[in-house]
């Protein structure tokens, strides 16, 4: 992203939006130390299931197919400060707690509609929290997960080429292209 894109992105923020792309502009916050082995394979598998509930298979492959769980683990390891890493790790447990509370089962033992119900509740919770959150307040773990899921999916090869339209070398510019509902958006460069 260059300066012009940065200016453009401000326009997006002004539109009352921006989840996930936020880090492209502001970056991750500094932290004390990097933990090499923050996540094990079970964590990554769990994250893939959570991400796939947020962005499931539809006409196009979902987040698990795009290995978004692996991406999230890399991002939390490399780009999150320790405090956010702690919130994130604790959050994985809180997803199971919420599942237990609602359906008396762990998240991975739920069926697809139950998973969606649990995460829909958590998303409502994070949206309400974020609305009144002050800059110094801790981040909400589910917002982190959702942001990283969107970022990971829509910048993955599957996300760019299947969910979106990716044109490596457009060759020309047309500023007045007819659009009809259902046409896919262009992937970012």
């Amino acid at each position: 992203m260059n300066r012009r894109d940065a200016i453009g992105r401000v326009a997006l923020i002004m539109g009352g939006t921006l989840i996930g792309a936020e880090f492209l502009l502001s970056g991750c916050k500094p932290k004390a130390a990097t933990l090499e082995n923050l996540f094990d394979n079970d964590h990554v598998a769990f994250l893939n299931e959570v991400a796939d509930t947020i962005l499931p298979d539809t006409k196009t492959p979902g987040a698990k197919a795009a290995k978004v769980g692996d991406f999230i683990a890399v991002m939390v390891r490399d780009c999150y400060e320790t405090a956010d890493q702690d919130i994130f790790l604790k959050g994985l447990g809180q997803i199971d707690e919420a599942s237990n509370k609602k359906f008396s089962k762990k998240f991975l033992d739920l069926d697809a509609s139950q998973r969606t119900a649990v995460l829909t509740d958590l998303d409502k919770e994070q949206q309400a929290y974020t609305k009144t959150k002050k800059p110094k307040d801790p981040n909400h773990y589910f917002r982190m997960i959702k942001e990283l899921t969107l970022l990971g999916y829509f910048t993955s090869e599957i996300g760019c080429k299947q969910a979106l339209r990716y044109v490596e070398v457009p060759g020309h510019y047309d500023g007045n292209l007819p659009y009809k509902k259902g046409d896919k958006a262009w992937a970012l460069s």
Partner: protein
Amino acid sequence: MSTNTYDAIVIGSGISGGWAAKELTEKGLKTILLERGRDIEHVKDYVNATKGPWEFPHRGGRTVQMEKDYPVLKRDYPLNETNLDYWVDEKESPYTEVKRFDWFRGYHVGGRSLMWGRQSYRWHETDFEANLKDGVGVDWPIRYKDLEKWYDHVEGFAGISGNHDNVPILPNGNFMPPMDMNCVEKDVAARINNHYKGSRYMIIGRTANITKPLPGRTNCQYRNKCWLGCPFGAYFSTQSSTLPAARATGNLTLRPWSIVTRILYDKDTKKAKGVEVLDAQNNQTYQYFAKIVFVNASTLNSAWVLMNSATDIWPDGLGSSSGELGHNLMDHHLGVGAGGLVEGYDDKYYFGRRANGIYIPRFRNLNGEKRDYIRGFGYQGGAGREEWGRSIPEFSIGGEFKDALTEPGAWTMGIGGFGETLPYHENRAFLDKTKKDKWGLPVLAIDATIKENEKKMRIDMANDAKEMLETAGVKNVQIYNSEAVLGRGIHEMGTARMGRDPKTSVLNEWNQVWDAKNVFVTDGACMASTACQNPSLTYMALTARAANHAVEELKKGNL
């Protein structure tokens, strides 16, 4: 020693240094181009230029380690995963901030010509007259007519796409065909142009991306990956443009890893006889000799070279007799503007990633208007449809949410201001001899800040942006106004200003150091004011003009 003798030495290979090398070699001078950093070969070394976003482990973002390693770069958009190697190693090359100054540097062949924003606008007569009329700083020793044919010259070679908009305050140029506005920008521009009836304009950006092929260069392919280096050579850089031209003459020697530590001054002839170079790889010292020296190390580093060239005759550095060397440091102040939503274009989209936006030239304090500040500002911006990083009110998570995000969202339009910063004597850079860089050289200390004039201007920059967008029918317009920090514009100017009087300026009307007339400074250091236009095109024109003068004077035996 004979192998170390050339006709001309050029210090620095960025935008202006590349131009100096091209012009001097084309006029027959054996020239050595000294670059402090590594070589980056055109195309071959643009290692990330054709990668997809998924090929970057953090998708272009920044890690905690990167933030630790680049404490200055992280302050704004340049710190990122995709072209990290193009930015200076801050541990090797620290500087001292008396006050916060964001200094974003590129130490390699091509300098910041590889990463620059490419927006290219001529200055207007008003800009050259401003200091004299306002009684600020010193009068520019040149006027628009002195630079006009050199603008023609550099635009023709560099390849600037733009429209002949006939805006009174912004001269037309020697353009390639313009890029297109998109449909929303066109309508917003029409509404602004109609409403303000010739006092304000919105035009397509003028950019150093070519829209027709040039020798060895392909026209822009609308990838918008310019700052990774363009495999098509579609934007102007040293690598794509001036370096191949200079090489084609057979007169160029390029020497990377060459830190010029000082200019060698001969007190008998009152001229420079050459430069001393510290080889950044082997730490050996070399001397190079020439009839003329062009200093193009970038504004602050050109000041550093001059200051570090102190002698018993000039204890504060070469060019310091006026007491102005290092002073009057300027930038453009930015980070203020507005944006909002545009309704009614849901059946419209665009194709291609246009590496350009719209421009709104200066309109304040013209035609007799007097605000509570002097000078003015312009805006850059653009319209586009929201991407996947948005919320969908109806959906939270799940398949419908995902499918909704695969479609483009609402149209938004945003503009951000670039404001003129006045030359203040007390805004300065100086040598900090208490701190050394990796090579044991003293570092630069920077002490500069914006003042009342800029602060008052920023109120207009915010409010005018909102007013114009609302006038054009943009909805839910929100102002943003972040802290103004000098350096953040990456348009450093001043420290060795041109002028009419050796008592108050460092350079004369031909960019010659008053105290050593075979030394020319033609990068941003020479600027006596900033105007509000992106400055690189003016550096190119000043450099070509000065190089021509240098060769003429050499022929006359005056140097």
